[in-house]
């Protein structure tokens, strides 16, 4: 087949994009007339095909020698004005290949899951249209070979996120959440756009390869331009990836259907910021200050979001805060220069967080839409498969070996310690403790203990259908084995990604000209330590929520102040409303009612009023008597004659 289309499957990369787009177009235009099963089939098949091609592309890429693993395909010039050109071109390299595999792979599973989850929904075709459009945008984001094309994908996923969060638009909370997501993302985009502008002005191109090639030559490390560019890019990343201070949209985004939360707000879109930072690692490395900021924000977000997760009662919100927290980890890794580790955690996180969200979706589905964990409990016996897969996911996120999360998280902590400092490690480790605690709190509250369900809900509890459980099982499998991608001794992912990050991804690789290996001792003691931390967290959760279920309430009662702050998410939303949203609206009203209506229009109408007043006087000359007019004519004539006689 490659012979038909060109040298190799790499030439088919356009099809990866085309299939989901075609699916979106077909479903969008005629989905209303098609039966739901066909709509679902189109939605899944297009993404499935994209996944197959991604695998072929991946295999073809492997055939090349590591330093030649970069394939670019340009289709047409998108914008060209003067010296500025942005082409519609795709780029296949190890990083983008890893991303398309994750996006199409996890995406495909979630599409399949959605058929079951969204069964019978009125807007079934609309849902799949959006979902396919999202897949297309996300693939464009990761495949683009320049900043501006990436920005299309970047905004495209934002749009789909907006549409899918507000999918049940009749709910005010849903439509507001969608709007909030879009606007907060736009604040981040403000930084991204400025970064693109600055990049173009500095390098006279927006092409990735050229920018990254000329950056080390044109800029000195630590220069102001590099710092400004990377900080602006990072602002974009904080918006998309829900980091402090722009994280507030993600918890609200849980208003969307649960598979959407799994795909967009856990596995793929929210990690786009991490992808972008890794993609621009050449630039970030040139600014130690920016890297520090990335690490600090990442670490702080990891901890901050974890603390909020402790007190939430909505199953999806807990997961949302845990997502924010986990992405914080990824940025922490990037910030200390361990870009590959960041991507590694991105992958494992995609597996286990998608699993957790889909699992929670299965629970919600079973309970007829109930999301409050206080009204769950004891579901283990009703939903055995969901429980088992969920348990695997929870173990993975908590960082218990040999599950996927252990390897990536452990590596982040190790990197934070060796490349960063004790503070970064401390942030990460404490967050890991909290993560293990609140995730097991979630697990225990949902599946263990006594049932706290309403009677009529309990009667209808049922295990989800097979097309929902199958994705769960596959993801559970991946959550178990995914970690071995980055098995410390023979890290496949490190070697694979090394060309992209220029050998800066991994401890033990060349770093600043000198090689330094981490001692085996340190590595193993770190592993032991982080496992210990996770187990402590789990034990705490076990004691509080299984052994002595009354204790949490007592603790909450004793530390009411702290508990309230956590329950209300540090009142950040309220603070933003009070300091930014409301003043903006108030001042807008002022601008309109005072500046516009009173002052400017007041002046305009004032001039008219003045003319009117003066004419009031002048119009008295119009008496309406013909003889008065005739007399004035006569007088006028006489005056003219007199003037003519005397002055001429």
């Amino acid at each position, binding site marked *: 087949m490659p012979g038909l289309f060109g040298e190799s499957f790499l030439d088919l990369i356009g099809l990866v994009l085309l299939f989901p787009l075609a699916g979106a177009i077909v479903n969008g235009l005629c989905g209303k007339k098609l039966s739901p099963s066909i709509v679902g089939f189109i939605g899944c098949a297009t993404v499935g095909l994209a996944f197959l091609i991604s695998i072929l592309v991946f295999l073809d890429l492997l055939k090349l020698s590591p330093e030649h693993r970069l394939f670019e395909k340009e289709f*047409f*010039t*998108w*914008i*060209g*004005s*003067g010296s*500025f050109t942005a082409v519609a071109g795709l780029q296949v390299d190890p990083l983008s290949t890893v991303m398309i595999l994750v996006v199409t792979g996890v995406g495909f599973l979630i599409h399949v899951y959605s058929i079951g989850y969204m069964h019978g929904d009125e807007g079934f075709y609309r849902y799949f249209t959006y979902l396919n459009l999202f897949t297309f945008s996300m693939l464009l984001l990761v495949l683009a070979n320049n900043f*501006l094309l990436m*920005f*299309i994908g*970047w*905004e*495209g996923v934002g*749009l789909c996120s*907006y549409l899918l969060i*507000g999918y049940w*638009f*009749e*709910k*005010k909370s849903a*439509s*507001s959440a*969608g*709007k909030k997501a*879009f*606007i907060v993302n*736009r*604040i981040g*985009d*403000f930084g991204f*756009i*400025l970064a693109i*502008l*600055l990049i*173009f*002005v500095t390098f006279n191109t927006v092409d990735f390869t050229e920018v990254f090639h000329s950056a080390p030559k044109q800029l000195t490390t630590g220069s102001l331009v590099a710092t400004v560019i990377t900080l602006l890019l990072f602002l974009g990343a904080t918006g998309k990836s829900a980091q402090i201070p722009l994280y507030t949209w993600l918890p609200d985004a849980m208003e969307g259907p649960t598979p959407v939360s799994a795909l967009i707000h856990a596995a793929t879109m929210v990690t786009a910021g991490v992808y972008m930072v890794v993609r621009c690692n050449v630039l970030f490395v040139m600014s130690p200050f920016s890297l520090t900021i990335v690490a600090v924000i990442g670490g702080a977000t990891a901890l901050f979001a974890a603390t909020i997760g402790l007190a939430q009662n909505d199953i999806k919100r807990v997961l949302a805060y845990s997502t924010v927290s986990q992405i914080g980890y990824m940025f922490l890794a990037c910030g200390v220069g361990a870009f590959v580790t960041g991507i590694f955690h991105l992958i494992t996180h995609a597996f286990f967080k998608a699993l957790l969200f889909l699992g929670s979706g299965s629970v919600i589905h079973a309970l007829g839409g109930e999301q409050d964990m206080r009204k769950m409990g004891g579901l283990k016996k009703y939903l055995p498969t969901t429980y088992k897969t969920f348990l695997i996911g929870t173990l993975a996120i908590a960082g218990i070996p040999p599950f996927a999360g252990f390897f990536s998280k452990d590596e982040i902590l190790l990197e934070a310690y060796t490349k960063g400092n004790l503070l970064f490690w401390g942030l990460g480790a404490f967050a890991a403790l909290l993560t293990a605690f609140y995730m097991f709190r979630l697990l225990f509250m949902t599946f263990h203990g006594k049932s706290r369900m309403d009677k009529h809900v309990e009667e209808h509890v049922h295990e989800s259908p097979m097309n929902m459980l199958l994705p769960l099982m596959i993801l559970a499998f991946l959550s178990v084995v995914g970690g071995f991608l980055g098995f410390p001794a023979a890290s496949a992912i490190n070697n694979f990604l090394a060309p992209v990050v220029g050998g800066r991804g991994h401890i033990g690789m060349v770093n600043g000209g000198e090689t330094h290996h981490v001692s085996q001792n340190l590595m193993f003691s770190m592993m032991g330590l982080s496992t210990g931390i996770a187990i402590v967290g789990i034990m705490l959760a076990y004691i509080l929520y299984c052994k002595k279920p009354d204790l949490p309430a007592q603790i909450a009662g004793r530390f009411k102040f702290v508990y309230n702050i956590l329950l209300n998410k540090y009142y950040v939303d309220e603070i933003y409303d009070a300091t930014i949203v409301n003043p*903006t*609206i108030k*001042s*807008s*009203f002022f*601008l*309109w009612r005072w*500046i*516009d209506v009173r002052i*400017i*229009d007041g002046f*305009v109408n004032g001039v*008219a009023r003045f003319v009117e007043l003066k004419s009031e006087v002048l119009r008295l000359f119009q008496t309406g008597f013909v003889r008065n007019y005739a007399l004035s004519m006569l007088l006028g004539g006489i005056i003219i004659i007199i003037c003519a006689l005397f002055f001429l």
Partner: protein
Amino acid sequence: MSFPILTVATFLPLAGAIWILFIDKKKEEKIKQIALVTSIGAFIMSLPLYFNFNLTTHEFQFVENIPWIKEFGISYHVGIDGISLFLFLLTSFLTCIAILASWTIKERIKEYMISMLVLATGMLGVFISLDLFLFYVFWELMLIPMYLLIGVWGGPRRIYATIKFFIYTMAGSVLMLLAILAIHTLNYKETGEHTFDLLKMYDLDIPMGTQFWLFLAFFFAFAIKVPMFPFHTWLPDAHVEAPTAGSVILAGVLLKMGTYGFIRFSLPLFPYASHQFVPFIAWLALIGIIYGALVAMVQEDLKKLIAYSSVSHLGFVMLGIFVFNIQGLEGSILQMVNHGLSTGALFLLVGMIYERRHTRMIADFGGLAKQIPIFAVFFMIVTLSSIGLPGLNGFVGEFLVLLGTFKSNVLNATFATTGVVLSACYMLWMFQRVMFNKLSNKKNQNMADINSREWAIILPIVILIFWIGIYPKPIISRLDSSVNHLLTRVDEKYKTTLNKVTKDKEKLALKEDNVWK
């Protein structure tokens, strides 16, 4: 002489108006059909301009030059270049759309269609005139039908709105007339030839002091039309009161005349003054961007909201014009076309729900997406185009403007970029309140989704929105040589004037030195 395609395309609507004049006013269907056919005819006639456009030259194309009033050197000199090409096409395109959107007009159809067609001729004429006098004639010609459109077929406060619109515009254009006469006189003194020919004026070297005043006179005429802050207050009133088609034309074409005037007249005629005014205009434009967006956010009337959003968008256009680089200028021209399409479409869509519900208040709506899903899709696309989503038309222009601005002034670009955030705020908030949430208002529960005529209105615009967003190259490539030439000319003339100024200063300094010695 070749086929006078510009004249035919421009005066075809006028011919249609004269034809309608002789038709019994009771034959309403026939009148509408004639109006539609002639406007479509004008659009089809203008299409060859696009296909036969020569990309390699900056010279004016399809030129016709016939003496008109020889004694004063006034001639019928028309032609287009890359800058006017797309505005011309946009105008003839939007005229068809606007006439099709006027199918629901109930009273005085004959007079309405005549006004519409005369308006079309006036607008098309403005974009092709290469003679200052001819330009002025067309400029004023389009004012009258617009005045009537708002004043006769408008909403409850139409008289106030239309008089405000008329007087505002007149106040500006009188100053422009004076400036035109002044340029004519200057040219006569310089060359001894009576002429109003724009191309000859381009070579004129106007002293800087005079440039200052003449620029100011043109500035008022154009700034009111754009409209720039603080001359914008006629716009919300005019838009709110105008009938749908009037709003479409007003937003889609009339506002562009101001910005087009800056490019065609102010920049090449007064390069020195243009450069001097840059900080002033840039700040007004920035205020316009942010102020317009903020005020749009709190509007309760859909049309007012869109009107203020126009102030914000046109701020981008102004910003791009006065950065004097190719990206900025090309972005501005593209943004004019984009704004014409997306804001025109927004007004059309608002007009559609107004026809069904007879209200434009945001508070009266909510949940419409459930009742009229196809309409909602179109509304969404147009809204996204208006907020500049990449992949749709708005982004390309906006980005190029920002790029051009960034090259010349980083701070200005930073402020302008906040407009990107704010536009999302006001448009999406509006969209949420109108289309999302519960369909609670009883009166909205039997609204009909869009019919086939409305499909025909909105679909072409949406196709263009996608086309420009995804593949803008055919447009930008047609702009290139004209814009490049314009910038070089402005730059050269600016530098000669600047040299003169510095020499004068040196002389003065020498003199002073001598005095001190």
